[in-house]
């Protein structure tokens, strides 16, 4: 699995220090509820019915035994001795004390974990098939691209305040065990006629109040362009998605309102500026990240 490099570790550590100070100021009465709310949400802390809830990110559902032991110890020490795995492959703690959360995040950082972007109107944890890399029916293992996308989406400055939350799922199998059609963007990996890894891109799926299955916006996307293409999709959504009505704010409503052809046209127009730019993934970069996902046996 992916291992943090010094830069990854540094930004997670810095985030913990920043959040510790924000929480200290809130508890000292220097920040109001309204001022503190977005800060805690950016770090996965909700205030629920009875207690705070901390949602810890498990990128594409992959964990090491060391990380799980840390989660066990955190649940024991700071919560009621259990956790809850969510339908987005994350772990939720139901009873942490608000004043303990900076320490919890500091503990998580020691095992390359955090709760960043597990809530709020940003790109959330990318989900995938739990049998990625081992399933006999898998055509492409999507985890290396998922990791590259995780890095791209984490702290993405343009997409920190989207009209609404944004969920991406990736899958490289025929059956699809990641419900790619029920996501804001679903990426279905396959091998094209030339034997190259390619992506069928679904957009505008989602459950919730208005359940809609996604529509294919692009049948064949070369993997090198997955970041620039997703950036174009989300940029169009960020500009035109509705912010006046929370129930109509997801990308699925925009795609329905514009129609898939008009939406695609706008995305392509945006993409023309981004394609072949710095977001292009090189073979070297893919190989570098893919090394972390080599088959175990």
């Amino acid at each position, binding site marked *: 699995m992916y291992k943090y490099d010094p830069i990854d570790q540094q930004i997670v550590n810095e985030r913990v220090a920043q959040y510790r100070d924000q929480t200290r100021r809130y508890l000292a009465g220097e920040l109001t509820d309204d001022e503190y709310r977005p800060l805690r949400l950016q770090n996965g802390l909700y205030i629920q019915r009875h207690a705070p809830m901390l949602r810890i990110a498990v990128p594409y559902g992959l964990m090491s035994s060391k990380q799980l032991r840390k989660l066990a110890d955190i649940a024991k020490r700071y919560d009621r001795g259990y956790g809850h795995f969510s339908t987005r492959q994350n772990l939720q703690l139901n009873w942490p004390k608000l004043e303990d959360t900076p320490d919890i995040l500091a503990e998580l950082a020691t095992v390359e974990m955090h709760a960043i972007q597990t809530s709020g109107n940003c790109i959330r944890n990318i989900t995938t098939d739990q049998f990625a890399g081992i399933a006999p029916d898998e055509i492409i293992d999507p985890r290396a691209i998922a990791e590259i996308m995780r890095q791209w989406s984490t702290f993405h400055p343009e997409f920190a305040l989207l009209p609404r939350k944004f969920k991406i799922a990736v899958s490289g199998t025929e059956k699809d065990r990641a*419900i790619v059609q029920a996501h804001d963007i679903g990426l279905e990996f396959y091998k094209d006629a030339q034997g190259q890894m390619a992506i069928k891109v679904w957009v505008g799926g989602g459950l919730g109040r208005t359940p809609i299955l996604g529509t294919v916006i692009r049948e064949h996307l070369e993997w090198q362009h997955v970041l620039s293409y997703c950036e174009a999709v989300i940029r169009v959504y960020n500009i035109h998605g509705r912010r006046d009505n929370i129930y109509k704010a997801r990308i699925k409503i925009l795609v329905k309102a514009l129609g898939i052809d008009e939406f695609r046209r706008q995305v392509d127009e945006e993409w023309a500026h981004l394609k072949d730019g710095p977001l292009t993934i090189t073979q070297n970069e893919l190989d570098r990240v893919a090394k972390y996902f080599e088959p175990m046996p």
Partner: protein
Amino acid sequence: MASNPAFAAWVKRCVQPHRVPGYRAVTLSLKPHGKAPGDITSEQMHVVADLADAYSFGELRSSHEQNLILADVQLSDLFAVWEKARAAGLATPNIGLLTDIICCPGGDFCSLANAKSIPIAEAIQMQFDNLDYLYEIGDLELNISGCMNACGHHHVGHIGILGVDKDGSEWYQVTIGGKQGNDASIGTVIGPSFSAEEMPGVVKRLIEVYVRERHDEERFIDTVRRLGVAPFKAHVYAEKETA
């Protein structure tokens, strides 16, 4: 294996194929009957971490179905994994069955909830707390959300249950025919919603129609797709009126 039916049942439901010969994936069920789906204690997390170290290269995965997976287990280690998982309550042989319920935290925890979801899941699990009957029913995905935000993916459950608020009390709307996968579909509402107490009985009656109508080897979802909601609806609400 033939001499140990409990192990055989677990292998059938909780062991999944692997592309490398001699290896299998193991799904550790976080759905023991009568407990909140997806919950795991600190002690169980330690057991899973130890299993991952001993038998699966120190890694594990979580699934959107809210179970944990040891992805790379050698065939010859399966029995040992089963014994240890079973001792920790992580080997309920129900993966992919009716009691492997996807369930959001709902009204017990979530501020947005219209209704509780965990007690509904638990009541259904207890209603169907008979492995032989569960195996006879076969593959079936039942998903529960406590409100229309749909964290429990109820729309794509073969049976979906949605908590709704009617005049301040908790009710449940039932859909059937939803499905995940490359032939995904959104379920159809069968009719007016039910009280919490009615829910296990409603699921029982949906299953009765399926068992009565199914062709050989036909899964619940395929029977629903073939027949539509009408016969299911008729049976569920007929019973309701005479009850």
